[in-house]
């Protein structure tokens, strides 16, 4: 397994930040998730939380760190002993999206700006398979990698004060789904009837870092049907298990 040169930095009195090279890369993601997995299984008693983003892991301890050197050496030792994330189970999720212009309120403007017809925007967006890098920004907001370059577009200069729940949007080189009503500066191309965050569940978000996401287009009628099933709590998402 390829080893990266990591940086270990104290972050406040109880946390250590581990950083990989500063780029968004699936090999880095795999290594981040392998190390995270190793840390979570290491049973080091005073670690209270381990969380990850694109190229970093933040480890929070229960007590003030007296000796950063000791903590860092333990982490370095665990990094060299990390197990490949191939042993973890990941899921591939198929997410329905209605790209009707009634939902995709920025589709027309985007088609003009990018000189890509609306049908092609939908095609490019729903043909890709995206990787979940981590969840952040809002509860249940997935940071997805893998957007087709033809759809990269700078964020809006003035963010909208209210973006609808389920809005599927593009900002810069990223795409995502707003799990709840929120302000937002991304270009809205559709809406998904799926709930990305359920505060009543022990696992409030079905997806996790390392999973794959695929979007597929549905009609307005189908959208209403699925929405009704989701609201009744009986909708079953399409998914399959993938390894590695």
């Amino acid at each position, binding site marked *: 397994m390829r080893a990266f040169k990591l940086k270990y930095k104290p972050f*406040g009195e109880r946390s250590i930040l581990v950083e990989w090279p500063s780029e968004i890369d699936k090999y880095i993601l795999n290594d981040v998730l392998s190390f995270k997995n190793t840390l979570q299984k290491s049973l080091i008693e005073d670690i209270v939380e381990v969380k990850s983003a694109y190229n970093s892991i933040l480890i929070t301890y229960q007590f003030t760190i007296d000796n950063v050197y000791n903590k860092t050496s333990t982490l370095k030792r665990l990094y060299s002993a990390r197990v490949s994330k191939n042993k973890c189970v990941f899921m591939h999720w198929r997410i329905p999206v209605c790209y009707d212009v009634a939902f995709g309120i920025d589709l027309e403007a985007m088609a003009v700006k990018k000189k890509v017809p609306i049908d092609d925007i939908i095609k490019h967006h729903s043909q890709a398979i995206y990787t979940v890098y981590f969840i*952040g920004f809002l509860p249940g907001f997935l940071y997805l990698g893998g957007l087709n370059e033809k759809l990269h577009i700078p964020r809006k200069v003035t963010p909208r004060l209210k973006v609808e729940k389920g809005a599927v949007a593009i900002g810069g080189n990223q795409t995502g789904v707003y799990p709840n009503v929120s302000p937002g500066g991304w270009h809205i191309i559709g809406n998904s009837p799926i709930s990305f965050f359920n505060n009543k569940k022990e696992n409030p978000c079905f997806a996790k870092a390392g999973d794959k996401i695929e979007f597929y287009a549905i009609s307005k009628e189908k959208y209403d049907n699925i929405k009704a099933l989701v609201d009744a709590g009986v909708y079953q998402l399409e998914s399959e298990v993938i390894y590695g």
Partner: protein
Amino acid sequence: MVKVITSGFFSTIQDLGRINNQEYGVPYSGVMDRYSAKLANALLGNDMNDALLEITMTGPTLQFNLDTYISITGADISPMLNNNSIKQNHVTKVSIGDIVSFGKLKSGFRAYLAISGGFKTEKTMHSRSMYNGITNEFKINNGDALPIENPSMVIAEINATIKVNTKHFTSKIIEVYKGPEFELLTEKQQEQLLSTEFSISKDNSRMAYQLAEILENDLKPIITSLVLPGAVQLTPSGNLIVLMRDCQTTGGYPRVLQLREASIDVLSQKFTGDKIHFEWTE
């Protein structure tokens, strides 16, 4: 229960917050000033994580429907029991029908009202801390009935008052560590960060405190990374944003400083126009 006759400007139920849900993008939340909140619970013999009322700037008017004990700590908002002033940092016995209200804000910004056994409002993801989208309500409202329990014991030490260090409310010193991107600043910028007297802008909330002064910089955004309450972010336009308890779990601005945890408590008692300066923690 406790009936909310009027809610005040912004009062919320808080405990020590949600941990272990950050990987789903869920903020920690929890009391802004842990020092004052823990004191309020300790006075009553409560668990440190029992839910209490965090009161911001102006107080609510509350009516009690059972005999119990309360304690009020943090900001001094001239608390009263049936229109007679009562002591802060002290156990107060309340009886059925009693009304607790507040007057003028004299010091600090956030007060804590703890009740024997804690408030028993909605618990979501192992915490009662209110947060929009996680709990059904994000603040208490006029007419709410806040569930409580009968006090489990009679408190004998009712006359004890705890002496609180007034520096907690008056000190301008905010102790900091270097943040992960501190070294990307020029020496001059680093020096400015530690020597400037900053003031709290009107953009201050449970999520973040933005400072009014600008620190010119040409730092590039970082690849979205993890943040913690107490992180000081520097935006391309030079705004310094100190993240607080309700902050997002990740962010893309360079993190130039990190507050000492006790300094988050101190900052929580500041509001618009107050001055602070950063000092290295030893």
